[in-house]
């Protein structure tokens, strides 16, 4: 617990001082994308890591948030500080609806039905031209007024600041959730649903809480994305986004708070770095995913905790190792 908190605080402090040293716009853009994906991966991790159900429909929340912010800003002239929270709230509402319908299902059924919801929303965004402008998407999501006069670098720094605040909020809420009784109840459900029920935990209450929290956070990330990229099209619901998020969570280690951050950092850099390889990029990416599943099944953080646990056993009476949540699932 303290180990995890220290790493989180150190990482966030590092991220806070980064723009003081970096003046390069391209690097800053990558850094913003890392923060954005870190928010998304952490929010997905609440479902995948702490509820233990594999959601492939997280883009539903991201897309809802992005469209909400884009529509409110372009058609109703809402400012940025109002659209992003509103995007989160609406996504949370969608989360309540989807959760109520899907959380009763488990295993492959849950996977496919969540995916179906994301696809349905994508098709709606594609076809409801009156609201979403169809495949053309919504372009020109307005920036705050003072940014129009400011330099490009100042604009990037401004968005970096917002992304940092969003990530800080995400980590704070996740931390409070994970180390609360509700979080421990969710983990109990993940580890063994029947035992959890037998001691009076209602699975639906806690899985729902985790899902809605995840939806709220990724909706806000979506609102941020709409303003930063200033364009939203149906591709926010695409499976490609989902794939990036899942890979981040799993590389980093699901069921840990630090894991998704590391995953976001690694994957965003890997994607940028592999740009050099042009067409081969996605093929290599696919192979990397396969390799991770086979050789690093618990993610990087899982690997590190395992090392620490092994050391903890060698040197008895270290309290930290036992606090790290295990990610192994009980046999169903």
């Amino acid at each position, binding site marked *: 617990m303290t180990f995890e908190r220290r790493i989180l605080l150190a990482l966030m402090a590092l991220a806070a001082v980064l723009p003081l040293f970096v003046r390069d716009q391209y690097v800053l853009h990558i850094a913003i994308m890392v923060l954005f994906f870190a928010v998304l991966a952490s929010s997905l991790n609440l479902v995948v890591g702490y509820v233990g159900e594999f959601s492939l429909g997280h883009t539903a929340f991201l897309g809802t948030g992005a469209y909400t912010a884009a529509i409110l800003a372009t058609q109703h002239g809402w400012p940025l500080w109002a659209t992003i929270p509103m995007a989160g709230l609406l996504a949370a509402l969608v989360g309540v609806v989807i959760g109520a319908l899907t959380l009763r299902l488990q*295993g492959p059924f849950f*996977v496919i039905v969540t995916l179906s919801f994301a696809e349905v929303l994508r098709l709606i965004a594609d076809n409801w031209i009156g609201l979403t402008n169809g495949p053309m998407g919504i372009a020109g999501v307005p920036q705050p007024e003072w940014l129009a006069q400011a330099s490009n670098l100042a604009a990037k720094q401004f968005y970096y600041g917002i992304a940092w605040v969003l990530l800080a909020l995400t980590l704070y809420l996740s931390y409070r959730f994970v180390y609360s009784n509700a979080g421990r109840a969710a983990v109990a459900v993940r580890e063994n649903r029947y035992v959890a029920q037998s001691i009076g935990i209602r699975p639906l209450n806690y899985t729902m809480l985790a899902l809605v929290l995840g939806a709220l956070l990724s909706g806000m990330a979506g609102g941020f994305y709409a303003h930063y990229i200033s364009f939203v099209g149906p591709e926010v619901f695409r499976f490609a986004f989902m*794939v990036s998020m899942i890979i981040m969570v799993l590389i980093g280690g699901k069921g840990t708070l630090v894991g998704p951050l590391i995953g976001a950092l690694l994957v965003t850099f890997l994607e940028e770095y592999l740009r050099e390889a042009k067409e081969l990029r996605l*093929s290599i990416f696919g192979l990397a995913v*396969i390799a991770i599943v*086979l050789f690093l*099944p618990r993610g990087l953080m899982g690997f590190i905790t395992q090392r620490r646990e092994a050391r903890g056993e060698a040197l008895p009476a270290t309290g930290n190792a036992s606090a790290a949540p295990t990610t192994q699932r009980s046999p169903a």
Partner: protein
Amino acid sequence: MELLPQYLANGLVTGSFYALSALGLTLILGLMRVVNFAHGELYMLGGVMGWWATTRLGLDFFTGLLLVAVVMGAFGWLIDRLLIERIRDQGEEPGILLTIGLSIFLANTALLAVGTAPLKVEAPLSAGPLIFGPVVLTKLRVFAVVVCAALILAAWLVIHKTRLGRAMRSTFQDPMAAQLVGVRTANVYAATFAMGTVIASMAGMLLGSIYTAQVSIGGLVSMKAFVVVILGGMGSFAGAIAGGLLLGIVEALWGGYVATGWVDIIGFALVILTLLFRPYGLFSKRAERA
């Protein structure tokens, strides 16, 4: 209303194509419990190889189909023995991630090899029309439906009438007991995955001769196949067929009478409704949920 028989016929034809494309998935998902996201890419590889065999190698359609079946069968066997075997019995998450990685790899490698252009598999028949009263279908489609039915029947016979099929059914009932009575379960798993791959790739080649084979088609095929499998109930042969036909007919009627732009949404709406009210599929009798 006079178009209704035509819509129904179109729906049945598309539906039988859906059934065949989903059959491989229902084997792998229903029996092996691997949520195979690379299914559409295996289908795509079948189409691309079929194009290569018929136009580049100059084989006729059926020799090409045989070649595709043999090569893809070996490929499926290898996928299972080299990749899926390592994550057996670890729940469905590693399987999902592994097959997503595989699908990204296959789709992009195929893209590098043959490009984005639609590829036409040489059809064994000319495209002339056949007229049955108020309904017009092309010869090629009727032929494809017949081949679909033959392939589905062959798969059914393999599972229910052969020694391998018995070994498969016993393994998926209880792997430990099957092993105790001398079934080599590792081979049975590999054979099941290979069989799913063969069916998917043959579907890809057959339908590549009617529509076109395209590298980017995989995602869409996987989605439709998931829809069909959920509708019919996992691992159920009759379910896959009924689910496919149902989806085909509903889509044809919706496209004919309501709006063509929204056709793809039907499948997902049906999936959501099915899972809410009949989570074991419309036609499955099993009362156990995964």
